[in-house]
């Protein structure tokens, strides 16, 4: 028996030795595939938008608010996307105002305060939260939050900027929590012990020692949350009310109760009905380019911030 086992193991090892170049090639391929996918997405979106790019009236696109892709007889189509950009930006900002404190708070609690079973069950529950499909979140916005907002604020319609932002915030929280928690856990215990030895309270440890030490990870977590908010589609389509109006007074908090429409919601609802290869179809891909630019800017900014923070830490 024993000899048989050894020989089998030897055989397996031999096979693995022989397969090493193959396995190495596979690992290389999976590494490069992500770059290939990103390049392919850029290529596809630009290819679909390309024919209309020279003809796009960018002034109209960015600074007017009439999105009429299929005009009435005798009129010209117009593609003013300003209200959608306002929609995407406002949902992102409001949802992050809700999600960042909530996410960081939960991460601090799980990593520094909770222990044993509580800690484990929280982690599992938050992973579960991340697994809820976006259409279900949209449904919660439409069916649960809608009447609550109607009652609390006494408004006729409860699907609006606030509703969509709450929904998106809850979708972003699990991501912020799990990455922030990793970042906090990565801070060596010696830091905590040193602070304790100096007589720091738990709160002082969190905000004077852990936050500065885990800056990079926490920022990355928030930036990923922002990316999630910009790209979210189905939930915002259902929960924001899709109004294509820009508020007159941004200082008025009542704009939280306005219906907004995001760039993503426009693409998902209009693409199926557009004439494929027509101007409208291509303009929807131009919106796709704008979204791509948004996410590239977010990623690059977060990279620069994180690098800057790193530099500071080295100098300190």
């Amino acid at each position, binding site marked *: 028996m024993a000899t048989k086992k050894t020989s089998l193991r030897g055989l397996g090892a031999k096979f693995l030795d022989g397969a090493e170049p193959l396995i190495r090639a596979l690992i290389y391929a999976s590494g490069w595939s992500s770059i290939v996918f990103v390049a392919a997405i850029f290529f596809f979106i630009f290819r679909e938008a390309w024919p209309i790019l020279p003809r796009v009236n960018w002034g109209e696109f960015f600074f007017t*608010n*009439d*999105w*009429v*892709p*299929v*005009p*009435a*007889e*005798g*009129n010209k189509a117009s593609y003013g996307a300003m*209200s959608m950009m306002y929609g995407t930006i406002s949902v992102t900002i409001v949802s992050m105002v809700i999600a960042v404190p909530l996410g960081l708070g939960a991460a601090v609690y799980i990593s520094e305060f909770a222990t044993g079973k509580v800690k484990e069950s929280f982690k599992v529950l938050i992973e579960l939260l991340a697994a809820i499909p976006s259409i279900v979140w949209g449904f919660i916005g*439409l069916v649960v939050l*809608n*009447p609550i907002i109607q009652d609390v604020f006494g408004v*006729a*319609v409860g*699907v609006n900027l606030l509703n969509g932002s709450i929904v998106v915030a809850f979708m972003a929280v699990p991501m912020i929590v799990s990455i922030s928690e990793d970042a906090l856990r990565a801070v060596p215990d010696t830091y905590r012990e040193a602070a304790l030895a100096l007589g720091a309270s738990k709160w002082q440890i969190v905000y004077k020692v852990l936050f500065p030490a885990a800056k990079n990870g926490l920022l990355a977590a928030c930036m990923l949350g922002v990316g999630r908010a910009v790209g979210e589609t189905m939930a915002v*389509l*259902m929960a924001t*009310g*899709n*109004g*294509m*109006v820009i508020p007159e007074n941004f200082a008025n908090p009542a704009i939280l109760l306005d*219906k907004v*429409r995001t760039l993503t*919601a426009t693409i*998902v*609802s*209009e*693409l*199926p*009905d*557009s*004439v*494929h*290869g*027509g101007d*409208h*179809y291509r303009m929807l891909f131009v919106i796709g380019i704008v979204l791509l630019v948004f996410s590239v800017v977010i990623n690059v900014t977060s990279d620069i911030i994180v690098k800057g923070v790193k530099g500071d830490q080295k100098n300190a």
Partner: protein
Amino acid sequence: MALSFTSCGKKTTPTSGSAIQINGSDTMLQVGIAWADAYKAVNPDVTITVNGEGSGTGIAALINGTIEISQSSRALKPEEIESIKASHGGVAPVEHIVGYDGIAVFVHKDNPVKSLSIPQLKEIFGEGGSIDNWNQVGGPDLKMEIVGRNNASGTYVFFRNIVCGKGVEFKNAVSPMSGSTAVVEFCTTTPAAIGYSGMGYVNANVGLVGVSKEDGGTAYEPNAESVGSGTFPIARPLYIFTVGEPTGATKDYLDWIKGPSGQKVVEAEKFVALPK
């Protein structure tokens, strides 16, 4: 939005046309599924797959040759006819009218306003229109919450053409919803709501207003009689497009749809059958 339904028959040797792929209008998805389901009893050897991803997507699939039948709530556009010819060796698409649809104007069930005229609807929905409060049409003092379909849907274009007339767009205050069901759901839950959608989506929990052609004219609710006789002012044909005249299993299926059994399904799905 894209529900899919497959009607699987007995497996037979696949001959050309024994599987029919269908895609197109969101409005016609329900009736498309019901046809496929009923046809299973008539000819179990034909496998029919129905999707409702939008009229434009259905026509694009026809251009690409991935489907046999495209269901549509709008007519073909000239550039689409050209694309179909270009990709099918000059064969032109054929338009089949398989039923009629009235576009219902929905409000909240408790709304006391029971009828509106086309000129009033134009003031409500059309750009520059003066009506934005229910008290201007005999209702309570309540700001209207106006919703519709997305800016490219067949229903949107048709309703605008009839209600707003030539050269007039919708107001920006008309919020595009994600689909017909969403419009009806919005009007069910919002007291100040007004919206439009295919009459197939009428249910007991939502209010319906009658529509008259002129101010003071007789108002009709969309039903088989008013749409069939042409007295309901916002009615349109339901289309099926094929590339060239259909043959084989597709022809049999289309003949069945236009025949008495298929038209019974049209009525059961709350659309209006072809005149007998």
